[in-house]
């Protein structure tokens, strides 16, 4: 059906919204000026004063616009860092796999791709996580072994965000259930101590404990690479936040759900798995998406441990002597990446809110 065209009053409404009172008029004018200025500055940097990638690097010296040639020269380095050049397909494949899987989860929880059963997603995760490590590290299936110090850039960012979040989620759910239940008071107390303790530490402290203290607890002669130690620390850290989100969902359920399940003769485990958790998880999804966005952006903090994620490889890209003037280009690359990926995550969050408000009305 063709929607009816808006009545002519609409134009007057728009005028009133923007310039109805002197204050709105002033605010409108100021924001329009700021928007114009920012657009112009961006346009100037990206197009008007910019140098096309066909021009040699030397021309970029002293230019006020973007040097697009920089991306031609340094994109692969910023994405994959010091990973051997000829083997770049491996981190590229790992990054694509992890991104695709994250996108699938995002689309599925907003109600798209109905054919994709949650069980299939779990199987995919269980398969892809070890596959990512085998592809990156090699030493098996005819792949050359690559030391973890060469795992840089995008794949490390994704391993420490996507995989850490994927592993932290089940742990978080388990902690939430332990904290919510009353059958085993000792476990309940332990979960409370763990969650509150973990949430009481700043993330950087947890990371330092992971990298400097965790190795001391291992038997002598075993060494753990900073990437693995950080991954473990991040999993335990994020889990405590996810646990609180899920517990919020569990507590919001009316007692009648629990009682109804019991009166049907379901055991405690089945009540949890079939009745309470599915409802609690769907209620806590918006909060979980929030935590995920935070966790994802915090990943760049690992630079203090000498791990070179995307932000750090971008810095290295302009550390090469003579390249220092391209700091803006390098940071813009990282900025655009985080803008795009976080835009997707917040889109997922908005969709979830929309779905829930539809449901509750």
């Amino acid at each position, binding site marked *: 059906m063709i929607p009816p065209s808006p009545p002519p009053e609409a134009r007057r409404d728009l005028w009133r919204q923007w310039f109805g009172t002197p204050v709105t008029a002033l605010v409108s004018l100021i924001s329009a000026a700021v928007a114009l200025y920012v657009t112009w500055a961006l346009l100037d940097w990206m197009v008007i004063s910019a140098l096309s990638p066909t021009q040699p690097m030397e021309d970029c010296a002293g230019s006020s616009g973007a040097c697009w040639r920089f991306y031609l020269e340094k994109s692969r*380095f910023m994405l994959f860092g*010091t*990973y051997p050049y000829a083997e770049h397909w491996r981190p590229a494949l790992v990054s694509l796999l992890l991104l695709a899987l994250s996108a699938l989860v995002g689309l599925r929880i907003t109600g798209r791709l109905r054919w994709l059963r949650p069980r299939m997603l779990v199987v995919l995760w269980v398969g892809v996580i070890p596959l990512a490590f085998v592809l990156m590290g090699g*030493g098996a299936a005819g792949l050359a072994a690559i*030391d973890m110090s060469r795992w840089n850039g995008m794949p490390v960012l994704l391993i420490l965000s996507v995989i850490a979040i994927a592993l932290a989620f089940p742990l978080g759910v388990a902690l939430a259930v332990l904290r919510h239940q009353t059958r085993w008071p000792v476990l309940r107390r332990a979960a409370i101590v763990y969650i509150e303790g973990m949430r009481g530490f700043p993330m950087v402290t947890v990371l330092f404990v992971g990298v400097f203290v965790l190795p001391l607890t291992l038997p002598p002669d075993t060494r753990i*690479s900073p990437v693995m130690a950080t991954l473990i620390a991040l999993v335990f850290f994020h889990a405590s936040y996810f646990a609180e989100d899920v517990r919020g969902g569990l507590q919001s359920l009316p007692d009648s759900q629990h009682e109804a399940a019991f009166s049907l003769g379901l055991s405690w485990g089945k009540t949890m798995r079939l009745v309470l958790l599915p409802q609690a998880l769907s209620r806590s999804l918006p909060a979980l998406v929030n935590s995920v966005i935070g966790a994802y952006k915090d990943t760049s903090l690992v630079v203090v*441990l000498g791990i070179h994620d995307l932000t750090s490889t971008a810095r290295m890209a302009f550390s090469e*002597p003579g390249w220092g003037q391209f700091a803006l280009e390098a940071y813009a690359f990282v900025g655009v990446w985080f803008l795009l990926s976080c835009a997707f995550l917040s889109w997922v969050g908005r969709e979830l809110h929309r779905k829930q408000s539809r449901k509750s009305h």
Partner: protein
Amino acid sequence: MPAAHNLMSVSAAIFAVAAAPAFAGPIMDDIKANDSLVCLVSPTAPGFSVPDSTGLFQGFNADFCRMAAAAVLGDAGKADIRGVGFSDSMKTIVAGEAHMGSRSITRTGTRDADEGMAFVVTTFFDGQGFMVPKSLGVSSAAELDGASVCAEDGSTTLLNIADWFGAQGMTYRVENIADKTARLEAFFSGKCDVYASDVTALTADRQLSETPADYVILPEVISNEPLTLVTRPDQAFEAALFWGFQVMLNADSHGITSANIDTVVADLDNQSPAVQRMFGTDSATTDMAAKLGLANDWAYQIVKQVGSYGEVFDRHLGVETPFGLNRSETPNAHAENGGLMYPYPIR
């Protein structure tokens, strides 16, 4: 899964060491068995080691990794150069997961006494200094009382600062940030007043600022920093490193570079006896090759693939580079020019 992988590679390394015949040395044998030399450098030290667009480390320190690979494996490209932070790289070398380090490590008495480490030869003589923003209006380190200092944790830098400030009766505060780029960022954004490091590192790090001219390096040099190649004890490999470096210094004395070595070798009969002893087919270096288990032309390969000491210095740090160091004004000048680089006789 990855933990298991780690364990496997550790046990594989132990097995390889145990199974190797004992005539050379454990490290030499391991390098040859893997046909690759694992060498650790700092991940971001402009001029010394920084990855290029293809992710390969380039710089003054990285070239000594290449020197070792050219000497032992005959191919500088077989150096597996990895960027690892300071304290991690020490642990990695002691644990036997890397063959050597070329990352501006100061040779000190207690470090040398550590049984897991062997310092070999000083590639760069440096000293510690202070960098401050011009806006601080300080012209001497004696005016830094009460300053906050950004410096590397676990390095000799902090100890030197403690000594020096203590001797002057001045107080200071340390901003301890492990990662170098993060630390520099903190300094450039004004989080600390003073950035302390080796003077040449300061010259290089200043280039990372968007406005290098806004920072000055104070005249005081408060320590001696002989930056030295490090490995684990292995007599043959240590000798290969030491004499590989001496080949580069001797080439420097005779004006031999990677560009002209082929013409020198083609016309060897008309060269000085010292040059003949270095590159002849039956010479001091071939004698050494037989004893150390190197290829006969190892000295030639070093100069051909890496260059002389002066060439490497000028390529990465010299006046033509953004760092603009004039070698003859540093302690790294040739001994004939009043510097500390004294070529040992190859005979």
